[in-house]
Structures are given as C-alpha cells and as structure tokens.
C-alpha cells in the first residue's frame, strides 16, 4: 500500500499534469461563474480531450474543471446574488450581504479559503480512509436517505431567517412546486393542467435566479440602494484574524460536508445548508447570519466542497458512479484503459493514488489561481450601477434561458422574480422554499422506493431491516423542536 502511494506520488509530479490541471481549474472557474452554464456541461464537452491525454494528465484536467467550476459558482452568488446552482444558495445569502456592505473581496477570499480547506481536508481523509468509507457507503439505502433528507428539511425550516411558521409555509410551497410535472416513480402527470412545458417540472435555474437575483436587482433600481458608493472599501482582503475567527466553523463544516458526501444521493446542496445551519446554531449571534457574516460564507463553502472527496469512493472501489460528475469521470477512466472497480487498486494502485494526490495538489494550485484572480472579479462591483444593472439583468435572462434553450423558462424567471419580490415585502424567507423544491424530489423518490421495498408492509419492513432509518425518523421531531426553541430565544428579524 505504502509503496503504491509513494509510486503514485512520484507519478503525479509532472509538469504537464500541473499545466493542464491549472488550465482546467481556470476554465472551470470561468464556466462556473457564468450563470446557466454548469460544471457538468463543461466536463462533458471537455471529456473527449482527456481521451487523448495520458491518464495522469487527462483525469486531473477534468478534476480541475470540476473543482474550479464549483468555486466559480460562488462568484455570481456573492457579487450579484445569482446562485447558478443549489450548492451556491447558502453562500449567496451572506455573500451578497457582504457585497452590499462593500466587503465583496473579503467574501470571495473567505469562499476561496474555506473551499480549498474543506476540499483538501476531505481529499486527504478520503485517501487514507477509502476502504472504511466504501463500507459506510453501503449502509445507506433509500430508507436512510429519506430519513436524512427529512431531517435536513426540518433543520432548515427551524433555523431559517424568518419565523418557523413562515418557514414551514414557504417550505410547503417549495415541496408543492416540486410535485408539479411527471411523478418520478409512477410517471403520472401532476398539476400540469395538460401543459407540455410543465411536464418535466419547474426548472431550477430560473427559480434560483428569479427569487434570489431579481429582488436584489429591483432593490438597487427602485430604492436606489447605493452599492457602488462603497466601492472604495472593496480593495480590502480577508485578514488573518477574520480567517482565524471562522476557523472553527470551517472545520465543523468540513466534517459535516465529508459526512454528507459519504451518503450517496445527498450531495452539495444538503452539505452547504447543513454546514450553514450548524454554524448559525453554534454561533453566539445567530441573528447576524444573513446580514453579512463571514462565517456564513465560510460554513457553506467549506461544507459543499468537502463533499467532493467521499463522492469519488464508490467510483474508485466499485466502479459505480454516484452522480453525473462521477459518471463523466468513469468515462474518462475507462477510455484510459483504467477499469474502476474492486480490482482497480490491485491492478493500478499507483495510478489511482497519483490521481488522488493530484486532487490534493489541484486544491493548492487553485488557492493560488483563485487568489490572483479575485481582484479582477471583485472589480466587477465597481462598475457604475447604470451599467451594472442592465448587464446583470441580461445575465439573469441569458442564464435562465441557456440551460434548456426554452423560452418557457424566461416566463418562469419573471414569475419567480415577482414571487421573490412579494416574499421579500412580506418578510418571508425564500430559502426554505428553494430547499423544499430541491430536496423534495429525491426525498419523494426515496420514500417511494422504501414503500416498494417493503412491498406493502412499510413499518414492519423498517422494524425488521432498517432500524437506523427508523431511529433517525424518530429523532427528527425532537431535534426540530430543540432547534426551534433555541432559535426562538434569540431575536429574529
């Protein structure tokens, strides 16, 4: 094992590996920063390039695109409140609040440092614990997934910005919106009113841009919120003291993110939200979260990046991709003649370690690339409002459209924009709605699977075979109640 590790270390130390990894990181960051373009698309398009490269070059290149893309998504989330993916939603909350206070550069720095820390720690953890993780992954089936998703929703509702009742209303709205379209299990149409456009459900991206970006753009235009006057303060970078103050939060989020990465089917969205909720719950001043707390950015970004390491494990140990990103990596592996699966470590141990080690180096490289490019990105906010607003509106519409190239999505964008404005006026937090919408479908699917597995005797099935899931389900109301009481004891907005 150790000799393979060392051989892998030697293999990874190649100039071309680093050059292409850097190119991948930078390209991924640019693509991720454009709303509407996903990291996944970028990886799929670049996949054939990796076919013609050496495995130790081609796969780190794709990994670079992936890692760069995740961070790239937090750039528009922080600067213009336009999260391009569910994973960046939690970041945009405090990130954009910081931008409004003229601290966008600090927010971007914090996002970068916590991303890199969370990613590196989880990668190193994965390298050393790959076989225990592989065992743990197997313990999570549909019943456990359902229980964990339900618990996540309860935690999000209990710790969100508005009152618990308002949060629950919004979450119910989100869950209901997720029901629209074809039922994922039975294929029955629900609430579509016979409209074909609604058959595939409401698209996520127009909703995200609509409820998060449009109200903020409107605030700048209507109330003439002075964002640009603070431009002079923009230049300040994150101080060592600020990073230290958030360090506990970053570590906590890294642990949470890594844990969530082990559970197949959860992913970055849940990780970011759980990291954020945990940080808010642990804080002495939970009321400052959402108002521009650097810890909020750190909590979300460390957690969503810490998911990356463990998600590689089923791919490497079983040859089974857990999501679309790992499916593309699987394509890259097999095209290189590496066959992921139980024997990969015996046959190609050194190469696998080389790839894993390259992942760690990709993070360190990204620290440098990100740190050097942040000043350019944060300069964006210094553009005059009269120019910035039209450009942001254009990106909002282009981003909503380009994902599916469907004009229906533009109507959705406008509708959710109006919805977002009304919700803001009524002091309803849209976060629980978005989370209900994103987590509703996987939760429903896992629920349906659990029912199918029990074959009509769900409760007996859970008692017989799935005590862990039953335990989480039983604890959920208690955890929800305790969090709600704690949050109620502090003044909320």
């Amino acid at each position, binding site marked *: 094992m150790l000799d393979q590790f060392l051989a892998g270390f030697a293999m990874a130390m190649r100039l071309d590996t680093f050059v292409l990894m850097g190119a991948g990181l930078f390209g991924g960051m640019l693509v991720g920063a454009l709303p509407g373009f996903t990291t*996944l*698309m970028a*990886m*799929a398009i670049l*996949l*054939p390039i990796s*076919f013609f490269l050496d495995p130790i070059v081609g796969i780190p290149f794709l990994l670079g695109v992936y890692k760069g893309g995740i961070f790239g998504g937090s750039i528009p989330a922080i600067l213009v409140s336009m999260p391009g993916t569910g994973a960046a939603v939690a970041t945009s909350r405090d990130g954009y609040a910081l931008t409004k206070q003229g601290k966008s550069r600090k927010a971007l720095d914090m996002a970068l440092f916590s991303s890199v820390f969370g990613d590196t720690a989880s990668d190193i953890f994965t390298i050393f614990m790959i076989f225990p993780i592989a065992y743990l*992954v*197997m*313990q999570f*089936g*549909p019943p456990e997934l359902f229980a964990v998703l339900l618990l996540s929703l309860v935690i999000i509702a209990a710790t969100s910005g508005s009152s618990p009742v308002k949060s629950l209303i919004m979450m119910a709205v989100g869950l209901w919106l997720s029901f629209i*379209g*074809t039922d994922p*299990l*039975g*294929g029955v*149409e629900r609430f579509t009113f016979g409209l*074909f456009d609604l*058959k*595939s*459900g409401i698209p996520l991206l127009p909703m995200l841009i609509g409820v998060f970006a449009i109200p903020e753009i409107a605030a700048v235009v209507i109330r003439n919120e002075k964002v640009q006057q603070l431009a002079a303060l923009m230049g300040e970078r994150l101080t060592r003291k600020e990073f230290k103050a958030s360090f506990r939060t970053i570590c906590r989020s890294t642990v949470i993110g890594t844990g969530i990465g082990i559970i*197949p*089917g959860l992913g970055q969205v849940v990780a970011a939200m759980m990291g954020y909720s945990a940080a808010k719950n642990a804080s002495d001043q939970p009321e400052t979260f959402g108002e521009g707390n650097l810890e909020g950015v750190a909590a979300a970004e460390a957690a969503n990046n810490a998911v990356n390491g463990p998600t590689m494990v*089923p791919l490497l140990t*079983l*040859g*089974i*991709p*857990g*999501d*679309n*990103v*790992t*499916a*593309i990596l699987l*394509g890259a592996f*097999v*095209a*290189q*003649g590496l*066959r*992921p*699966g*139980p*024997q*990969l470590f015996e046959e190609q141990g050194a190469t696998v370690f080389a790839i894993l080690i390259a992942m760690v180096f990709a993070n360190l490289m990204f620290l440098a690339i990100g740190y050097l490019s942040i000043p350019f990105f944060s300069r964006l906010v210094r553009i005059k409002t009269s120019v910035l607003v039209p450009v942001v509106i254009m990106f909002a519409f282009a981003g909503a459209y380009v994902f*599916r*190239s469907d004009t229906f999505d533009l109507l959705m964008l406008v509708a959710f924009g109006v919805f977002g404005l009304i919700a803001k006026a009524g002091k309803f937090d849209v976060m629980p709605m978005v989370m209900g919408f994103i987590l509703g479908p996987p939760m429903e*699917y896992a629920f*349906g*699977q659990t029912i*199918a*597995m029990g*074959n009509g005797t769900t409760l007996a099935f859970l008692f017989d075979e799935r005590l862990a899931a039953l335990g989480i389900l039983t604890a959920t109301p208690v955890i929800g109640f305790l969090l709600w009481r704690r949050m109620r004891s502090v003044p909320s907005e």
Partner: protein
Amino acid sequence: MFKTSIKRAATLAAAAGLAVTASLGVAQAEYPEKPITMVIPLGAGGSHDLNARVITSIIPQYLDQAMIVRLTPGSGGQKGTQEVAKAPADGYTLLFTHNYIDMLQQHVENLPYDPMEDFIPIARVNYAPAGVVVRADSPYQTFEDLVTAAKENPNAIRMSHSGNWGAFFVPAAQIMKARDFSLNLVPYKGGGPSMQALLAGDSDVTMGFPSTLGSLLDAGEIRVLATAGAERMFEDVPTLAEVGVEGDIGFMHRVVLAPKGTPDDVVAKLTEAFNALVEDKTFNRMMSRLNETIDLIDGDGYQVMRQEQDLAYKDLVNELTSQ
C-alpha cells in the same frame, strides 16, 4: 449468373446516374453546409452522452462539418424528442435516443408527437445486451433457481432496476411474462445506484450492461445468471433464449433518428458517414475502451426492428397496466 451481374451493373449505373443528377440539383447547397446538432433527450454523463461524445468527435471527418451534442433531458426523454420532431426535416437536427424512449413510451402515455409518423431511423450505432445478475453469495446459482424461488414466493424477491419503463424494467417485465413469475421491482435512479443496491444487499437481483459487469465479475462480487443476445456473452452463462425467453428482449439499441421528410440525399449522406465511422480505427479503439460494441444497422434495417418493437411493447404495456 452472367445475366444477373449485368443487371446489377446496370442498376448500379442507373443509381450512380441518379446520384449524379441529384447532386447536381443541389450543387449550390450541398448538405451539410453548416454544423449538425445531435439532440440527446437524456442528461449529461450517462452512457448515451459518452457514446455521443465519441461519435461527434470523429464523424466530422466524414461529413466535413462539425456535429454538436445538445443535451435536452426532461420528461423521461420526451422533451428532447419533441424538440427534434418539431425541427425542420433538413438533416441539421438529429436525435440520438434508444428503443425504450423511441417505441415504448407511446404506449404508456400521451405524447406530443408520434414516433412512427414523425421520425425515420438513420442508423443504429450499437446495442447493449443486459445480463441478469445476483450477488456472489446469493442462494440462486442458476436462472432456474431464481425462477423457482420466485414462483414459490411471488413478489418476495427484490429486484432493483434503473427506473420505471427503463432499460432494465422492460426486459424484467418481459422475462417475468415469458416465464410466468413475479419479482418485487424497486426503481433506482439509473443503472449505477441499482447495481449498488444489489451489492449493498438492498436488493436480491438486478441487471447490468457488460460495461459495468466486467470488473465486478472479475472481482468475484457478482454472478451472472443469464444474458441477452443470440450468443453467449460468458462461456458458462446461458442466453435468455436458452432459458425460455425468446425475442428482442434485454437490448438497448442506441439509434440516430431524423425528422420524417428528411430528403433522401441527406439520409444517404448521413448513412455513408456512419458507414465510414464504424470503420474508423480511432472510433473502434475508443468505443472498445468504453466497453461498447459497434454494430451498425442502417435506417431501413432498423425500421423493421422498430415495427416489431412497437407491437411487442404495445402488448407488454397492455398486459402490465391491465392488472
């Protein structure tokens, strides 16, 4: 003998003459004069996506134009399919789909298009034969063991599959129908999670394509009970036909379709390009690395298979939904 070859030569000459006049007729705008879009009605990262990336990175050599992949997932493939059905029949918008989306869905729900009326096949690029799989420590040593156990305890054996009306659900239903037994079918989101459920012990049986079976089989994690196809995939594993399940069952055909009404010369040009593609060395190398077969059938040949699928799926759906 001599006569027939003269006849053939004459037909060929006539065909060549026709081709020349046809090409003269469109000499000013010879297809393809701009990039061709290939719509995939499925998400990124799936096996269709991977296949398409390989195809579109090599076929431009033979078309002298780029081919662009556009992923349009949604409604189980209907969104992308509808988009191509609506597109002009000029050969610049093609659909890369599979037989279950193409021929099965019309019998399950009302579609905004009619696959037989709106599309013509251009090429079947390859197919993936499914295998019935259990864990290595499973009590079912043979396919017959499984059938016997399932008949004793109907619906008690759990089978994970890749989604309702998908590439494993349909053959499972067809096999159960042919051998008259029933399993408890539990859907998962794709073949990967379904295989993981088997390995984790959440399910007792599943199916898989060769690309995923190989390494797990070598590692001794799984046992294959039967495979689709006329010939044995593994020496000691029977084919479905050998265990009493006859017909075009358990195959996922990857096909390129075009909107109906696409001009003949465009179809001919595309057919020619696909013929050249499957001879291409790089294409063969990349596809074999992806553990994919290459088995080209031209449009006319596949149209016959489509008609057979149409009838078979209609019967199957009627039977399943009438219960």
